[in-house]
Structure formats: structure tokens, C-alpha cells
């Protein structure tokens, strides 16, 4: 099944600038979340129309969050192209993000699944809450991993848990334990994805060659930076926070310390992956026979998400 995420018909033709902005925004996205929706829905034998709606919903919300995120972070590039707020002005970027969220609500309310609509609205409010709190942590150089997890839980993880649970809500008739479990699993995937993304900032497993030290330079300690800096004395901490290059990072905290923290970080997340796989086994016991294959697909997810294996 091929999913059409966005077409010109979805948005008013009399707003050409808006359409051009969306063309730019959607053209280079990997669509990972919509593919996840497709995968889960495939095992639940959902109708194409419902899958299409959910895939579009998650991509619209994700892209709306990127539009707002780039403006808040003052990021100049998105998917190797100028960020929308730079190319089309910040006002257009905000309006375009808002419009996507509004479209989501229109589409879902037309579909008529009230529970799905409510769940989506909760997810959007979580996203915004997370964005707000994350912004308040900028320049907070004593932030701990637990605090960042709470932010990631609201931001990145809320999208992932939606991807896993929404198809179950859409189909309906599942036991509450299944809903709880897939939501928890989605959250773990989200946290893993975010932590892996944070490693890219330090050029770890950075196969896509993303720009490094973006978070640190903008005064935000991401999860790996928080782990690196947790035991530093004030002089090293100051040097670490002022790092402009990876060499600066190594010289401020020592390459050995960096490697050790990385090994511990991977070990912690390895344990979280094991926890995720344990939940997969439990889900397998709860799902009806015809849908148990879903678990096999879910088990494969930590590899690309955390270890960045293709």
C-alpha cells in the first residue's frame, strides 16, 4: 500500500505560498512515523482510508512541530534546506504549523472516531507542553537525564506512542492492557529515538552526517551532554559548555571520559531495549492469533531507531 501524505488538494489553492511552503517541508521527509502506522495497521487489517488518515495525521502533526521547533530554536536548516521561517518569514511558518494542526482536527472529526480525536488532541497538547518546558531548560547546565526524559516523553515519545496506539483505537475492541502496553512501548521507542538523535549531535553513529554540536552551541544540554557533564568539576563544565568543535569537547572532558560515558549510555539504553522486548513478549500473549505477527515487526524497531542500523 502506498500512502499519499500530502497533495495540493488538501490545502486551499488560493494560498499558493502556503502550498509552496508545504511542498518544501514534506518533500524530503523520510515519513518514518507514517510507515510505522502503515506497518501496525497492516497487521490489524485496517481499511486503507483509515490508514491513510492516521498516516497523514501523524505526518501533519510532526511537520507542524518541526515548523514551530525550527523557529523556537532558530535553526537555519531543515532537511538540508533553508528552514521555513527563514524562507517564508516567521509569521508564515507559525501560521503554516497552526494550519496543519487545524487540518488534522478537521480530518479526524470528519472520520468520526471520537476516541481517536481525543487521543490526538491530548498528544498535541503534550507536544506543546514539552516544547514549552524544553525551552525553559535552555542554559540550564545542571539538568539531569531524568528531567530530560520527562521532556522527551512529552515531545518525541508522544508521537511514537500515538503511532503504535492509534491503529488499535481506530479498530476498537481491544482490552485496556493492550492499549497500556503499546502506549508504553511507543514511549520507550520515542525516548530511544531521541537519545540516539542526541548522540548524533556528538557525531556518534551519524551516518546521515547531520550537523554536530547544534544543541550544545545553542545552550541546550541534550541527554548525552547531560550524561557527559554530570560528574564534571566547574572548570571542565565551563569549558565543555563553551565547546565549538568535537575536539573542544574531548579536550574539556577527556576522550577517555567521553568513551566511558558513551559506553554507559549505550548500556543503559541497551537495557531499555531489553525492557521494550519484554513488553513485546507480553503484547504477543495479549494479541489475538491473527495479529501476533505484529510483534515480530515491532521487535525490529530498536535497531534502526537507536543503533541507527538500516
Amino acid at each position, binding site marked *: 500500500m502506498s500512502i499519499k501524505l500530502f497533495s495540493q488538494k488538501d490545502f486551499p489553492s488560493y494560498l499558493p505560498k502556503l502550498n509552496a511552503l508545504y511542498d518544501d517541508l514534506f518533500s524530503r521527509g523520510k515519513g518514518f512515523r507514517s510507515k510505522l502506522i502503515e506497518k501496525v495497521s497492516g497487521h490489524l487489517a485496517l481499511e486503507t482510508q483509515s490508514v491513510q488518515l492516521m498516516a497523514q495525521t501523524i505526518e501533519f502533526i510532526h511537520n507542524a512541530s518541526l515548523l514551530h521547533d525550527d523557529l523556537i530554536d532558530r535553526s537555519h536548516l531543515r532537511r538540508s534546506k533553508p528552514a521555513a521561517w527563514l524562507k517564508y518569514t516567521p509569521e508564515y511558518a507559525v501560521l503554516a504549523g497552526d494550519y496543519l494542526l487545524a487540518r488534522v482536527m478537521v480530518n479526524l472529526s470528519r472520520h468520526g472516531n471520537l476516541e481517536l480525536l481525543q487521543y490526538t488532541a491530548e498528544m498535541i497538547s503534550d507536544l506543546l507542553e514539552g516544547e514549552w518546558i524544553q525551552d*525553559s531548560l535552555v542554559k*540550564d547546565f*545542571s539538568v539531569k537525564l531524568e*528531567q530530560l*526524559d520527562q521532556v522527551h*516523553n512529552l515531545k518525541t515519545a508522544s508521537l511514537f506512542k500515538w503511532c503504535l496506539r492509534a491503529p488499535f483505537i481506530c479498530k476498537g475492541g481491544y482490552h485496556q492492557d493492550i492499549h497500556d502496553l503499546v*502506549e*508504553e512501548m511507543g514511549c520507550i521507542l520515542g525516548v530511544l529515538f531521541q537519545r540516539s538523535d542526541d548522540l548524533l549531535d556528538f557525531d556518534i553513529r551519524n551516518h546521515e552526517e547531520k550537523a554536530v554540536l547544534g544543541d550544545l552551541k545553542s545552550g541546550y544540554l541534550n541527554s548525552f551532554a547531560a550524561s557527559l557533564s554530570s560528574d564534571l568539576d566547574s572548570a571542565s563544565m565551563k569549558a565543555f559548555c563553551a565547546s565549538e568543535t568535537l575536539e573542544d569537547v574531548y579536550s574539556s572532558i577527556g576522550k577517555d571520559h567521553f568513551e566511558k560515558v558513551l559506553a554507559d549510555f549505550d548500556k543503559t539504553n541497551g537495557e531499555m531495549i*531489553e*525492557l521494550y522486548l519484554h513488553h513485546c513478549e507480553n503484547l504477543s500473549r495479549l494479541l489475538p492469533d491473527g495479529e501476533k505477527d505484529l510483534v515480530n515487526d515491532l521487535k525490529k524497531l530498536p535497531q534502526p531507531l537507536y543503533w541507527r542500523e538500516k
Partner: protein
Amino acid sequence: MSTEFVTVPVGSEKSTQLLTGTFDKSKRAVLAPSFTKGFQSRQLTFKIEHRPAVRFLDLLFAFAKSYRPSLLILTMGPILSLWIHFYFMRAKLDIFMGVLASVGLFLIHGATFYFNDYFDYIKGSDSSQGKIRRRVLNESQFPAYWIRNGAYVLSALGLLVAIPIFTKAPWLLLLALGGMVAVLGYSAFGKGLKGYGLGELAVFFALGPMLAVGFAHVLVGTAKWDVIGLGIVNGFVAVLYVQHRNFQSLWADSDKNVRTFMVRLGFDRSKFWLTFTYIFNLAVLWGINFYFLPEVRFLKPIGSGVFFLIYCALSLWYFKKMRKVQSPLSSKLQALTATVLGLSLIVQLSFLNLSFALFGFMRRVPFTTKLDILAFLNKAMKFFGL
């Protein structure tokens, strides 16, 4: 080697066994992180590990940490003040009963916090919320039932020690039990009193007037306005501490729908409230210090002046720290509770107790000695050019 996990429903027999650590003597169950409210409220996941041998020092450290030694200033601080105060006041002390009551209170202090830790842990719903103290249980090597048993032992010893007191004045037993229930009820049962916004009231009475009046009755058989005043201030400071703790956990409480006073106020109004009460608290303390400082030439104006400057410095320091707190997750908030308040509590209560003791001391000493002290103070003032 892969890690062994087990997931069980909340409230099941198996979950109780895993939480208390009674399921297997050679293994321990550590709560695995859980991220979603729905899952947290219905399921518990544990990581099952081999239980390593417990080092005696680690055990001692864990139990000592759970005893909350820093909070002894709230429970034993006023007791010490009352001892000094009544001694210098030449009151007729019942030393035997006083010692029994002091030891009993010391033991009950520990028992209360052991129970508190145990019940909080047994609820099993906050492993991902980063409550550092609970990690004494969550991450340590010994099972939770050890701390529960520790609480039983301390309670039994505390009550045993206090038997002679309760036989002399049975109503004091009610007062003691009331205090213990108030502190335990703060968070132990369901959402606890704090969940209904009543936690502060319970803490105020338990660590305030009830504590001071009860002990004064044991020690000297009466409790007048000065004792009640000490109790009120101590209770007030205890509430200040508790409210800071609740401010620190504002987001976690809000997320779990535990409607503490701070949750009801919200983040910004809580900041304002705490700043106001902190400064108001210092003003009250200064007033009491001023009142209690003996009417000795130079001592009262200089003493109260020094107290005033220190209180002003503390207020400014606090205000600056509080201004930096920008969100309920800010690390500045953790530092605020841990350092500023801790230091401030010690300073406040030390000054309070000091002036209280001096008040009694100056009333006790004979007139000729007072003249000697005045002469000494005069010399000291001259030395400093005053």
C-alpha cells in the same frame, strides 16, 4: 546475558512480594522505568537480578539516610531548646521523663520516615519521577521489608520508652499518636493529606504546637505562651520546608493528579507564595528573636541588628535563586530546596533556639552575675570602639 523482567498487575499478591522483596531470598526486584500514566497505574515491571551480599556500611548508610538526619532539626531542635530554656528558667525539671520523651521522639522520628519511605515505595508508581530519596530503596541492595521492619522496631522501642510517660499522662499518648498519624498521613494513604491540600496543616500541628506543648508538659508539667510560640514558629518553618518539597515535585504531583497546595496554586503563583512566606517567615523570626533576646545593654540592639542583616542577606539570596527557577523541571529548583532551604532552616532554627536559650539564661542568672556579664560586654564593646 539478557536481563530478566517481569510485569505484574498493581495490587496483586505477586506485586506485593516483589515490592517488599519477599519473593526470593537470593534475588532482588528493581522497579523498571515506566513512562505512561495508564501503564503505571495498572502494571508494574521489575528487573530481576541476583541479590549481592549487603555490605554493612552500605546498609548503615541507607538506613541513616532514610532517618532524615537533616530534618532532626525540626523534631529535636525545639526539644533541645525547651531543655535549655527550662533549665535556665530554674523550672522544676522531670529529668527522667524528659530523657525518656527525648529518646522516644528521636526513635519515632526515624520510625515515621522509615514508614513513609516504605509506603511511598510500595505505591510503586513513581519510579520514573526521579525522587532521589526513594532510590535508597529502589537501587539499594536490601529488600523493602527491611526498612518496614526497621520502622516497626523503632516504633516499638519509641512506644516502650514512652510507657512511663503515658501512664502518668494518658492524653499525651493521644497527642503522640496524633502527631505520628499526621506525619504519616501526609502522603502514605492513597493521595495522602497533601493530595487534599491539607498536608501543611497536619505538618504544622504535628511538628509545631503539638510537639512543643506535649514535650513541655512532660518536662515541667505545664506549657505557657512561650512554649506555644516556639511550637508555632517551628511548625511554620516545617510547613515552609514541606511546601518547597511540594514545589519541587509540582509537575510530578500534577501529572498524577495529586492536588497539593502548590499544584492548586500553579507554578507562577507558587513562586510568589513561597517567596512571600519565606520573607514573612524571616520577619516573624526576627521579631521573635528580638523579643527573646535579653534586655542587656548592646546585646539586644547589636544581636537583633546582626540577625536582621543575616536575615536580609538570606532573603536576597533566596530571592535571587528563586528568580532563576523558570520551570518545574529546572535544575535550579532542585538546588533551591537542597541548599538554600537547608542552610536557611539551620540558620533560622539555630538563631531561634539561641535567643530562646539566652532568654532563659538571662532570667536565671543572679543579679550580680548579670552585672559581671554587662561589665564584660562593656569592655568588649570598648575594645571594638563602640
